[in-house]
């Protein structure tokens, strides 16, 4: 009896740790624990079923949680970041005040940070790592200028005020929808999950705009714009960053390292000898050390750290 309780407690602890994310050392320890005794495995599977089942539950009646904060940051945020997030909400609400002063608000995340921001009427923005957005409201439109980074927009249609996003010479207008925008230098990538968005070249507004529907990706650079239809699975993969995950299917290590570097102060440098090694799988965006271990253990690459960065070669 006491034994059973102990095993169940261990199983619960492991499952919660797994949910939070295991590093390589913990993963190995967990695997060892699982295969040690059938008792352990069975206790774990039983709790796992409950854990998954709990995802289908609804909030208890009269449930009151601490009020969600408007800019719930997923990763460490400094006080200034909070102030900015709070300010955005204030400017969004204080309509009267806005009439007398133009309101430009900057929302930004640092490397490795993510942040959710709520605007009026249920529109939500999820900022990914290292992103700068400037928001300006004028009568009939809210214009968000993306200086850099990536954000997911969940837009409630609002006839009185349209949402317009400007990124590297592209104007993206929602038609009541969910989509993400990634700006990397002059490159803009728009991923549409629901509804439709219109994408225009600001320098050439007389040209026919591109309208992208659900499950499509638009890539724009300079004068060129490419529209591609994707499967639901491919779209999902494009958006796993919203859950703090990076997902790759057979992508060269060079490209994979660039993705990790967006999220981590500790940068990866890949020697030309290892650049083309193909990587697949899902990884925690902030777990660059775990990924490093994987390269060492599974791909048998040479890895060394120096002045806070990671160097990888064959």
């Amino acid at each position: 009896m006491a034994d059973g309780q102990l095993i169940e407690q261990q199983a619960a602890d492991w499952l919660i740790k797994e949910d939070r994310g295991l590093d390589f050392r913990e993963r190995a320890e967990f695997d060892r624990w699982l295969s040690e005794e059938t008792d352990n495995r069975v206790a774990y599977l039983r709790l796992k079923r409950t854990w998954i089942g709990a995802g289908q539950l609804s909030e208890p009646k009269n449930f009151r949680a601490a009020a969600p904060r408007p800019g719930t940051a997923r990763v460490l945020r400094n006080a200034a970041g909070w102030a900015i997030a709070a300010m955005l909400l204030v400017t969004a609400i204080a309509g009267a005040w806005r009439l007398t002063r133009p309101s430009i608000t900057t929302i930004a995340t640092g490397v490795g940070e993510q942040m959710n921001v709520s605007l009026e009427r249920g529109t939500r923005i999820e900022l990914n790592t290292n992103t700068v957005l400037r928001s300006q409201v004028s009568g009939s439109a809210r214009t968000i200028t993306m200086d850099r980074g990536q954000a997911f927009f969940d837009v409630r249609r609002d006839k009185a005020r349209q949402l317009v996003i400007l990124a590297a010479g592209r104007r993206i207008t929602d038609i009541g929808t969910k989509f993400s925008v990634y700006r990397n230098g002059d490159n803009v990538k728009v991923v549409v999950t629901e509804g439709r968005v219109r994408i225009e070249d600001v320098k050439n507004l007389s040209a026919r705009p591109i309208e992208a529907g659900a499950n499509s990706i638009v890539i724009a650079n300079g004068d060129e714009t490419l529209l591609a239809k994707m499967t639901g699975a491919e779209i999902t993969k494009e958006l796993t960053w919203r859950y703090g995950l990076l997902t790759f299917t057979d992508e060269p290590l060079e490209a994979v390292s660039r993705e990790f570097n967006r999220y981590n102060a500790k940068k990866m440098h890949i020697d030309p000898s290892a650049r083309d090694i193909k990587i697949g799988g899902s990884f925690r965006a902030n777990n660059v050390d775990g990924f490093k271990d994987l390269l060492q253990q599974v791909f048998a690459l040479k890895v060394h750290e120096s002045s806070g960065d990671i160097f990888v070669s064959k």
Partner: protein
Amino acid sequence: MDRSNILDDWFFREVLPLEPAIVEYLSRNWGSESEIEDLRQEVFVKVYESARTEIPAAPRQFVLQMAQNILFVRQRRNKVIPIGSLADLEALEPESDEPSPERRTAARQEVERLQIALDNLPDRCREVVVLRKVRGLSQREVARQLGIEESTVEQHLAKGLRLLAQSASSRRGTIIAQARRYLRPSGSTNG
């Protein structure tokens, strides 16, 4: 590795949903209530281990047969007389192993049981579980929102999870009372 994944998967889909039936059978045929949890775990372990050699075609029948065997062995060892007849396996509605409306009903009941257990969790524990599992915040976000340590969030989740899992052993009707009894503050519960 593959083999154990198939086994895990089978166990997950076919055996774990039978927990209420197993517990009902054990309670009906074993006098000592404090041993039921232990027996249930023994059934799970034995079923898993024998499925290593061959995955049984009719899980429900197999699992209840296993429960019966375990009681027989224990009975002989303890030299105790059971409260019911161990032969009354048939008394449990002979549900087929085919996917069926009964199965869907069972799945719905499982969720209902979990919901009641969730509603009855201790306040802080429930808050943490709802934020993580219903609202979908990460553990870190939950900690931030509630202004508590991440390690505290982990503790609440582990405790909540065990209490929710307990709901599968509760029989319909007595479930709320059982949850309450289980939740009564004791020395070992924290928060």
